[in-house]
């Protein structure tokens, strides 16, 4: 906590007041208590972590700070003055800004337009100068080390990781006093850029609230952490003094046992359940692999190495331009996820973007779970009021989703419970091969454990799993075998005890036994460091 040196001198503010303080803040929606009682103090120039399981009230607290939600009770102070924003603009005027987890960028506008929303025109001028908007956008990008992004590009055309960086850059741009980063690394494979930007903001004397499920990251960048559990702030700890176990205990309320990947040899005797040969197109440049019965095959890669294309091709969402997919030993060419599901023993896909590709927000969790086998749920084609919940129950139990959530609209559940429901749906399809794209993205420790358990149980039962994860510890814990993608090709393949973070990192950045076709020089020292850090 001695890191506030080098902040610019702002004489009129007393250092002791240079903080954001919230005490006894609470918010309920009808009978649902989203946040019961939260106390937190963010000091200028300090990076403060907010930890808690999904549904603990983190998002609500963030929204209260941002002015998007008005608390029922409690008081907030900013630099010694009362702080009670009633809108996002009001919060922004007080120099409090947030990079939202779900990204608040408008897809049909350009990067530059998004930066300047809602006032693009210069003060006093009614009309917007397109050239000036681009120029100002370029300036902001430049300031945040994102010069490679075209300010005139439509945000919707950019990859998720770049959108996340833009969201963060915009928040930093608007945050003179308090910067809130809600899961800033959810779509970033490396933290290098982010930590550099955080360092710069900290040097300016900005108080930073950092929300992440990745404890390694939190330990690297934060000095103190406040833990929320069930809507209450349990306490604030200095990260130097608390062990991971202590923090997990505060978050979950009990100790989390560290599960290790059981040394299991997959039965490769029979024909592989899913085999790909020389898949090309959609970022792939000749990917071949085999997935056996009862096997968990991990995919590790830096962002944008073709993993997205691989999963989308295998799921039937995209048609490959070359190569063969074999299911149960038979060459097939399905073109829709529905066909993939009906192909041989079935392939089921858990998509990357929960909000847009996964959930049907207005429907109940139960409906979301039973969707794949809806025709089997009802009687004589009619579905009774409780039929769906009854049918969803076994699947929900597989992923430890509490039955009481089944009746709720899935859009109202926390991210972790949404993900559990989606996982339950993927399992409930009855497919024997699962394609899981980042199955624990942005979920808490407890949910992760449930999802891991479900994946393991599925594989024990003879199911095959292909999963990509942006978190290396996850691959180390789960995978029997691991493919490393680089530049759209399988760059390395690790098995059993060889799946260790160091080896994965080396392969992911293109170092290793097999030289990649022609572009080994791309990697620089940066990503090596970054991945090694995030892998810790």
């Amino acid at each position, binding site marked *: 906590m001695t890191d506030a040196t080098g902040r610019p001198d702002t004489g009129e503010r007393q250092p002791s007041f240079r903080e954001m303080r919230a005490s006894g803040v609470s918010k309920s929606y009808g009978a649902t208590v989203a946040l019961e009682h939260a106390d937190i103090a963010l000091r200028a120039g300090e990076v403060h972590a907010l930890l808690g399981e999904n549904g603990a009230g983190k998002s609500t607290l963030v929204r209260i700070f*941002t002015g998007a939600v008005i608390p029922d009770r409690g008081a907030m102070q900013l630099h010694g003055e009362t702080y009670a924003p009633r809108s*996002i603009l009001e919060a922004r005027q007080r120099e409090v800004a947030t990079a939202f987890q779900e990204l608040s960028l408008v897809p*049909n506008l350009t990067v530059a337009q998004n930066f300047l929303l809602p006032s693009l025109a210069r003060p006093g001028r009614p009309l917007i100068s397109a050239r000036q908007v681009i120029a100002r956008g370029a300036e902001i990008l430049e300031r945040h080390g994102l010069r*490679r992004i075209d300010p005139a590009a439509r945000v919707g055309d950019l990859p998720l990781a770049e959108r996340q960086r833009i969201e963060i850059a915009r928040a930093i741009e608007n945050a003179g006093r308090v910067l809130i980063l809600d899961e800033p690394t959810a779509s970033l494979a490396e933290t290098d850029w982010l930590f550099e930007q955080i360092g710069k903001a900290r040097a300016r004397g900005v108080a930073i609230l950092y929300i992440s499920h990745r404890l390694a990251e939190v330990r690297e960048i934060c000095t103190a952490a406040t833990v929320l559990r069930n809507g209450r702030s349990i306490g604030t700890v200095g990260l130097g003094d608390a062990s991971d176990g202590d923090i997990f205990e505060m978050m979950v309320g009990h100790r989390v046992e560290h599960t290790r990947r059981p040394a299991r040899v997959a039965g490769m005797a029979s024909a592989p359940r899913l085999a790909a040969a020389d898949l090309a197109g959609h970022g792939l440049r000749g990917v071949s692999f085999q997935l056996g019965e009862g096997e968990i095959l991990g995919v590790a890669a830096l962002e944008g190495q073709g993993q997205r294309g691989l999963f989308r091709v295998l799921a039937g969402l995209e048609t490959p331009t070359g190569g063969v997919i074999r299911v149960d030993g038979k060459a097939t060419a399905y073109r829709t996820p529905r066909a993939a599901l009906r192909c041989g023993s079935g392939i089921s896909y858990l998509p990357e973007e929960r909000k847009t590709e996964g959930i049907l927000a207005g429907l109940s969790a139960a409906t979301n779970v039973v969707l794949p086998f809806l025709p089997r749920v009802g009687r004589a084609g009619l579905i009774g009021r409780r039929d769906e919940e009854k049918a969803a129950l076994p699947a929900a139990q597989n992923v430890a989703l509490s039955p009481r959530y089944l009746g709720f609209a899935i859009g109202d559940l926390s991210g972790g419970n949404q993900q559990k429901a989606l996982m339950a749906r993927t399992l409930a399809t009855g497919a024997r091969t699962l394609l899981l794209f980042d199955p624990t993205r942005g979920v808490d420790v407890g949910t992760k454990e449930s999802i891991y358990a479900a994946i393991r149980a599925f594989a024990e039962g003879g199911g095959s799993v292909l999963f990509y994860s942006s978190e290396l510890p996850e691959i180390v814990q789960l995978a029997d075998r691991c493919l490393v993608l680089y530049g759209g090709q399988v760059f390395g393949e690790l098995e059993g005890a060889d799946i260790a973070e160091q080896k994965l990192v080396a392969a992911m950045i293109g170092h290793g036994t097999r030289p990649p076709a022609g572009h080994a020089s791309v990697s620089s020292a940066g990503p090596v460091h970054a991945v090694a850090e995030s892998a810790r």
Partner: protein
Amino acid sequence: MSDIATTSGGAAPSAAPSAARSGPAPRHRLWRLTQGAGLILGLYVLLYALYAYQQPRALDAYAIAALMNNTAPLALAAAGQTLVVLSRGFDLSIAGVISLCNVVLAVYPLEGPGGALLSMLLCLAIGGAVGAVNGWLVAYLRLQSIAATLATMIICQGIALVILNAPGGYVSEWIADELTGRLWGAVPVSGLAVAAVVGLWLLVRRTDYGVALYAIGADEPAAALSGVNVRRTRFITFVGAGMLYGLAGLMLSAQTATGNPNSGTPLLLLSFAAVALGGTSLSGGRGGLFASVVGAATLTLLQKVLFSSGVSSFYTGLFQGVVLIVAVVFSGLLTRIGERK
């Protein structure tokens, strides 16, 4: 930092994966065509050439003015509808506002240029007031736009029937003559009115409101979190759209010179057809007002062409529907080819 500075992502060959991922995929020229009014403008020119081939007098100033007069009410109505559609809404009150303005002008004719000006202000006020009610219901009370505007449409049509329960009345001579006439014997006044609206739109598009309109149409929660005042934007949109319907009612009255409590009804669905024909996405956030105006002009011109080809007017609707489907499919096809690059 490990950032590799490339000029702008799009041009970079796929040699370096970490560089190629930053920019958007390069857009094909065809894709760009579908973004503006290019496609529909091309269709219009083609159709006009056909019309001119059939009717050599189609290029006379008189014929052009007549066509403009026929086009203006639908074009203005479609322009208003476009605003609401861009904000991800539907506005059914269009039929009510136009009928109401029409009967008011037919029952209370105000003579002379001063009277015409007053009449125009009256139409704008009627449209603006109905739009304000719509905006209040949709933006502040969060009613669904179809439900809210359906209600106001029914109310307006009811009022129109109270004012004039059967076709009749007459619109002031000045309006009927001057608004359908030509300036300096060449420039149709109705065309000028539409051009003025398009010109105004080109300015509005470049304001903060214009950007906010597209933003809330594409992703309302994101726009709200970006600081856009969603409610105010939506409210302004309905008011602006209502005023355009008022203008459409004025131009329709000038053209028919008489009152009819149901005069706005045919324009309701045609306005959506014009919007769709212009390539504006009915799910909001994509498209433009000018394209809808050209879409409206195309629908009107199609009627003329069919008429001059000797096709019975009973078939007009059938042809309009087919053209609509073909145009939407074609534009979708171009978009897909373009996005595949």
